[in-house]
């Protein structure tokens, strides 16, 4: 694998130059006069809120669609891919959030898909394919049998396989779209170090991300988009690029308004929800899934309890168990002093529990359906009469009032929800539960895929709901978020609660220690 190394030594100016690229759709300008450069052997961060134009730019660069005007130069030649295959052949590979591996095929088959090495009779040479694959995945630090089916790999491993495949295609620019969003802390560290190694090999990387800390840690330079325009370029100047600077470029206002700590609220409510010795069953179908190993927890009326934990700590499993979405093996749950045993979400909802799930697209929204249906679906009984007919006027009035109080930006109640930004979708999902007046609301990663600006709004909404007496359990992997809104914080690790402290006393360092101690020890073994 020498071509990448051979290309590295000559300090060429720019591998990729985007010059004044504009993209219009049916009169809407998604991207306006954007220019940027990526040089060999550097990591460029591409940042911006949702709707800033990042995905449009990625689609243009990966050959999904052409720009309306402007020019792209790749390796000194005008770059006009007609389709994604073209772009790949020319040396630009894009790795999307939703991975493009075929789960039923093996690692080797995926790497060599469409170009399997052939033996003398023109038949596939499986041995050569395996040997070559082993060498290719070793380059990204993967040590596994290439005949393993991809479905048996973790998300992080799959991602590395994609990167390995890109390298084997002799890609010179790898675009990574939110590669870390599904990874644990250790996996992120590993990915970062591989990105660093590729940089040394002279590969150019464009790193598209929401996670500012990570971008700051690894990027040499950053290009920030805002509302389809270039908001500016940032350079690593001695040290890493500072977060407030990035945020200011992204939102066009100072970062101090975001993540403001709330004043300590007086939470004197009674215990609403109490969990004792909660355990879940190990599913033989998913042996690696996290199980709860005896969780004790109290949640008071009017408080926001932050649950901090890394991916795989069991935080989502805890939420699902309380909500009746997963089966419970042992333990008790009491709500307002009464023991409850919800067997389905419908049971939990009837008891006054709501859940805003972690994966909005797959678990919460009905993408193609209108906002009105998305809003009222959990409260159909409240917006219909005894004969089962919808009371549409009441339903619409309710939506209109939430639209105002939660400032949901939408065109009409009939608009399909997929047309809304992540933040507005999340507000509709919050409204869905508010329509039921829940006693307990569990929110899992409430601001995932939500713009920086709308995050603060979602936090504000949660605080207001708590003030109305709702007991809120907020699960999040973003510590600044946990710190910003929680009255009390518990940490989880491997299906257990590992610590608890008042929000006012917590710091990122303290929480991180409780969340990750065990895992970092393991990683060093």
């Amino acid at each position, binding site marked *: 694998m020498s071509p990448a190394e051979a290309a590295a030594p000559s300090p060429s100016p720019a591998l990729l130059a985007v010059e004044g690229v504009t993209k219009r759709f049916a009169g809407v300008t998604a991207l306006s006069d954007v220019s940027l450069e990526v040089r060999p052997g550097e990591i460029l961060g591409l940042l911006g809120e949702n709707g800033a134009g990042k995905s449009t730019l990625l689609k243009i660069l990966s050959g999904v669609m052409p720009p309306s005007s402007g020019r792209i130069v790749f390796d000194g030649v005008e770059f006009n891919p007609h389709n994604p295959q073209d772009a790949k052949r020319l040396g630009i590979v894009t790795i999307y959030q939703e991975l493009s591996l075929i789960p039923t095929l093996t690692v080797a088959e995926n790497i060599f898909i469409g170009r399997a090495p052939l033996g003398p009779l023109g038949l596939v040479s499986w041995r050569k394919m395996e040997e070559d694959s082993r060498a290719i995945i070793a380059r990204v630090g993967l040590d596994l049998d290439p005949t393993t089916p991809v479905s048996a790999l973790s998300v992080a491993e799959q991602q590395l396989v994609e990167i390995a495949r890109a390298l084997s295609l002799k890609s010179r620019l790898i675009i990574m779209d939110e590669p870390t969003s599904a990874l644990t802390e250790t996996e992120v560290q590993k990915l970062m170090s591989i990105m660093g190694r590729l940089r040394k090999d002279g590969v150019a990387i464009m790193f598209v991300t929401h996670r500012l800390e990570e971008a700051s840690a690894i990027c040499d330079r950053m290009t920030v988009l805002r509302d389809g325009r270039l908001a500016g370029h940032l350079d690593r100047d001695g040290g890493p690029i500072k977060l407030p600077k990035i945020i200011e470029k992204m939102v066009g206002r100072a970062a101090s308004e975001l993540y403001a700590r709330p004043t300590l609220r007086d939470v004197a409510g009674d215990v609403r929800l109490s969990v004792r010795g909660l355990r879940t069953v190990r599913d033989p179908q998913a042996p690696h899934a996290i199980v709860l190993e005896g969780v004790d927890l109290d949640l008071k009326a009017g408080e926001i309890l932050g649950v901090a934990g890394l991916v795989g700590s069991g935080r989502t499993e805890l939420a699902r168990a309380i909500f009746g979405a997963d089966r419970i093996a042992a333990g008790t749950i009491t709500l307002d002093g009464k023991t409850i045993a919800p067997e389905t979400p419908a049971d*939990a*909802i009837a008891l006054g529990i709501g859940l805003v799930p972690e994966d909005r697209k*797959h678990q919460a929204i009905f993408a193609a359906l209108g906002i009105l249906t998305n809003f009222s679906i959990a409260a159909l009984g409240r917006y219909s009469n005894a004969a089962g007919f919808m009371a549409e006027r009441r339903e619409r009035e309710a939506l209109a009032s939430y639209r105002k109080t939660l400032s949901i930006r939408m065109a009409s109640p009939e608009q399909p929800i997929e047309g809304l930004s992540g933040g507005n979708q999340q507000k509709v999902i919050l409204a869905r539960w508010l329509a039921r007046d829940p006693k307990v609301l569990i929110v899992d990663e409430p601001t995932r895929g939500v713009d920086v600006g709308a995050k603060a709004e979602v936090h504000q909404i949660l605080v207001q709901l708590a003030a109305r007496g709702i007991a809120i359990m907020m699960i999040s992997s973003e510590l600044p978020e946990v710190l910003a809104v929680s009255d009390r914080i518990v940490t989880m690790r491997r299906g257990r609660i590992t610590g608890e402290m008042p929000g006012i006393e917590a710091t990122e360092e303290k929480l991180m220690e409780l969340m990750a101690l065990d895992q970092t020890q393991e990683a060093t073994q």
Partner: protein
Amino acid sequence: MTSTTEQTQRGGINVARLLMSFGPLMFLALLIVVFTVLKPSFIDPINIFNIMRQISITGLIALGMTFVILTAGIDLSVGSLLAFCGMVAAVVAKGGTANTLSLSTSGTQGFGWFAALLAAVVVGAMAGGVQGFAITRLKVPPFVVTLGGLTVFRGLTLTISNGGPISGFDASMRWFGTGLIGPVPVPAIIFAAAAILCHIVLRYTRYGRAVYAVGGNAEAARLSGLRVDRILISVYVIVGFFAGLAAFVLSARLNSSEAVAGIGYELTVISAVVIGGTSLFGGIGSVGGTVVGAALIGVLQNGLQFNNVSSYTQSIVIGLILILAVAFDRWLKSRVRR
């Protein structure tokens, strides 16, 4: 609607939106115009009512199928189920499997049309319920369950009837297939009433919302507190009910229940639903679309026949129209999205 004037973005999108909801309807209108120009007698009320009578059988089943496809399901068993329900209705109507046309006047052992109707729809609904149960509890995909059903119900039909037809019903039963109310055929009225009822259920009731939600995203529906399994079972009960109703009307019209009735109906029915704009992936579609889809197929069949196009060629044309209709729908949607 004829907004050729504005070139604003908004206007452009609205025209596409309009086309999207009325595309099949406009295509239907176009076909009627073409056939009328080719042969003016096509538009005669007699012929129009004839078409309405023709589409009412598959149309009734298509109404039920709309519910199923909205949940991203499919029911391939409807043709066989129709034959089975028809046979059950015949047995009840005549009080046995005797195949005598002359018996109708002195049919003393029979239980009358109402019992026959009731038997057909109850058996249809129960058969649908069993299939729905297999789909939700045994976790067998709808395609497989109803493919099995297709064979099972045909076999049951042949078993009861010994392979032959059961014919000769009394006049009160035949009225449901051949009668007129004013100038309008009774089957057409039954179809229209059922369509309106289905439209109201899907558009204005809690249950209708739930059907769309389950089809739109079953996991989100479950996490929103819907009893997804019950809703899934219910749509197969509904399509079974309509297969039973269609069977009754068909038997009444032909004055006979044939063991080979309804072969291939599942394809016509699914075509009508899909041409009408209901997505096979669930969550999107309407009863209005299905009615238009059924009418489109009916007009096409009748119009081609009217112009002496052979039935072989008819199949080719209808198949191509199905593909084109879906391609057109896709194309429109991709335009709107962009």
